[in-house]
């Protein structure tokens, strides 16, 4: 991974993924390693974010690096009409590594072509968010002890949710089986189901939540967003169907963990938060270790 950009989870081999997870594990044991001493990392967030930006910046700071950047495009030259290319070429002069979130899909790949320093994609519209996928995998391996042969239940917006698509692709290398729970309007797109069929991996589809999570190893919740529905009546009908409640976890497997990329709105009831099976806040913490690992590997410091 040294000096290579990380744009899409599909760019990483299975071995590279495992290397990231192993390195992240090392940082979890000892998070204050000054490996980024003397390095400047630019965080360019053309779109708002809480966890991704702050966990990157926390990771950089804990590793002794320096951060420059912006958290919205409004007070930069982008608002004067500067092209993405010009912004990237400029910032590449000021930094050793660029972390970028941008609403336009494919913008990170393009940035990686014009930049002389590596780019880490922190989300390009609905396309890719590879560091999220890696921290999800880190969380899965940490809680299950393995990535192999797991049953992963995905709930909510499976049509537009980039995190579930990337996680599906990545976990397909580890013989996972899948359960998709979504309203009719937001079901897993055909191309991903075809992909699983070609790989010979099992999947099931349901519209009901409670009875279909009992044999899950991982329940991966996502937000059902109002703006995804063409018919507001449809949203009203489903918005409370996909709410995970504490009692639903009673009959689930003891090793089961609930994951969520966050932010959540109401799809996980707050009465779940105290349950030992709720893992989403620790998952957000794991984002720091995973991002430490990714940056160190790309800069060749690990």
């Amino acid at each position: 991974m040294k000096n290579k950009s990380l744009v899409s989870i599909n760019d990483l081999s299975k071995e590279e993924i495992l290397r990231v997870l192993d390195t992240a594990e090392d940082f979890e044991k000892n998070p204050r390693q000054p490996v980024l001493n003397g390095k400047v990392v630019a965080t360019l967030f053309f779109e708002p974010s809480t966890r991704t930006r702050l966990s990157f910046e926390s990771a950089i700071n804990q590793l002794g690096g320096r951060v420059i950047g912006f958290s919205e495009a409004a007070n930069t030259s982008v608002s004067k009409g500067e092209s993405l290319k010009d912004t990237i070429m400029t910032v590449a002069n000021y930094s050793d590594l660029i972390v970028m979130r941008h609403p336009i899909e494919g913008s990170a790949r393009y940035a990686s072509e014009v930049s002389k320093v590596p780019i880490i994609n922190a989300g390009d519209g609905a396309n890719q968010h590879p560091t999220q996928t890696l921290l999800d995998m880190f969380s899965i391996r940490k809680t299950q002890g393995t990535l192999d042969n797991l049953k992963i239940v995905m709930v909510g917006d499976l049509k537009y949710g980039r995190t579930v698509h990337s996680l599906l692709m990545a976990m397909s290398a580890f013989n996972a089986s899948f359960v998709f729970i979504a309203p009719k309007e937001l079901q897993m797109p055909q191309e991903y189901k075809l992909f699983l069929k070609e790989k010979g991996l099992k999947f099931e589809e349901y519209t009901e939540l409670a009875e279909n999570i009992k044999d899950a190893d991982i329940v991966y919740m996502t937000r059902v967003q109002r703006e995804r529905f063409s018919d507001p009546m449809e949203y009203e009908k489903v918005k409370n169907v996909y709410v995970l409640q504490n009692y639903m976890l009673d009959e689930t497997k003891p090793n089961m963990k609930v994951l969520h990329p966050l932010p959540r709105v109401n799809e996980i009831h707050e009465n779940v938060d105290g349950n030992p099976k709720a893992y989403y806040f620790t998952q957000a913490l794991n984002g720091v270790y995973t991002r430490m690992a990714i940056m160190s590997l790309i800069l060749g410091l690990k």
Partner: protein
Amino acid sequence: MKDKKHLSVSAIENGTVIDHIPAKNLFKVISILGLDKIPNQITFGTNLESGKLGRKAIVKIADKYFERDEINRIAIVAPHAKLNIIKDYEVAEKMLVEVPDNITGIVKCVNPKCVTNVEKVTPKFKVIDKKNVSLKCYYCEKITDQEQMEYK
């Protein structure tokens, strides 16, 4: 009964004849190959009867030969095109176009939020289905199918 009038497109001494172009895509072929920008003598016929294509077009370019990579660029718009390489009025070689592994330029990405439709970026695709011509965008990773294709 009057003699049927034949449209005869004159033979060329040296050059390339591209046959079996779907009539509706003739001008796309011309633009993809840049035939509108070269000084060579060119004749073309369009809306000719063809059993296979319905209506076909044919282009004859004098004193011009194409590289394999160059000619494969028209595979997207004329997948059944046949080339006759003419030398001294004789067909010296026949060639079929092949859908290439990658497409640069030519086709627009179907995704309006793709960087190639927002910034000044040349679209690039990996061809994931050669038979039905299905393209995966190198940037946004979305699929553009044959029926959705718009040309640059």
